[in-house]
């Protein structure tokens, strides 16, 4: 998603959200403009993760 050597792109509040949810942004696909990771993208991964862990347990 990101240029070689560049960080995943997002905004500070979304980064905070990801931090709070324990999500690594390098594992998130951005659907915003030019691949920007949005709040929804993080929440989608979080929900999927929850679902996944629910299954594992």
């Amino acid at each position, binding site marked *: 998603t990101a240029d070689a050597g560049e960080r995943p792109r997002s*905004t500070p509040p979304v980064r905070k959200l990801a931090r709070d949810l324990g999500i690594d942004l390098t594992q998130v696909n951005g659907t915003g403009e030019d691949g920007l990771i949005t709040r929804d993208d993080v929440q989608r991964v979080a929900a999927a993760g929850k679902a996944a862990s629910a299954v594992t347990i």
Partner: protein
Amino acid sequence: MTQMTLGGAINSGLRHALADDDKVVLLGEDIGKLGGVFRVTDKLQEEFGPRRVMDAPLAEAGIIGTAVGLAFRGYRPVCEIQFDGFIYPGFDQIVAQVAKLHYRTRGKVKVPITIRVPFGGGIGAVEHHSESPEAYFAHTAGLRVISCSNPQDAHTMIRQAIACDDPVLFFEPKRRYWLKGEVSEELGADTLPMGSARVAREGTDVTLAAYGPLVPTAMDAAAAAADDGISIEVIDLRSLSPIDFSTVEKSVRKTGRLVVTHEAAQSGGIGAEVAAAVTERCFDWLEAAPARVTGFDTPYPPAALEEAFLPDLDRLLDAVDRVMGRRNSLTGWKATA
């Protein structure tokens, strides 16, 4: 309450200061009989005499330097620098003496000097008469730097500046000298203290920080944006050193977006400090990078070009669009690179 122009409100503030404290003296070029080139000291020499309101020899270092000596003697000098562009010959006395004396003497020596500076562009003037040198002084530790945007503040703030024991640079928005408003000469408990910013208009989407001449422009931008469904909170910084960051921070934590504007060049201007400090304080709340709308990084242009140089409604609204992530007809700018 009396209807006054901004310049008249300063005149009346100076009159109060002269009347209230006989240690207050005014000195500057042409401030006596002429009443200043903008008439801000009109009639004050007539009223208080040439000892209280002095036409100094033509030398800015001399004006500031002798004010230092007068302050040592217990006076509260109020210096007028005739135009922004003529403060530089006095720069050494301001930066190396006025600013440092309180610190140098571990608080023993106070220098309650007020330096009045008509500043900014927009009046079609010739070179050196439209500058915005405030950032030089805001970067200088030991000075207070303030700027007013309306008659009431002009009146209140000049009196607060003169009453203050710290040295104060008082930047007067010269193109707003003729702006009219109601002024109360009673400074009461509800008067904003020196150093505080003022929320000039409440809003929820974008914080727009301005000071001095651009506050009315910012208010116009807020009104225009409201028509477009964007709610702008306008903050009149009032104090540029120190900056009342708690007021700005509170606003940005609400809006998530900041635009800051001034006439001075962008690089190293007040906007840089506001953007950097707000980013430090509000990082996790920011939806977009703070945007700056400023003069360009060139000397102030000839008057014929000043409209293109000065931040105006269009440029403010463009920045609002940018921090809102909206394209617009002016720049077609995209929210992310």
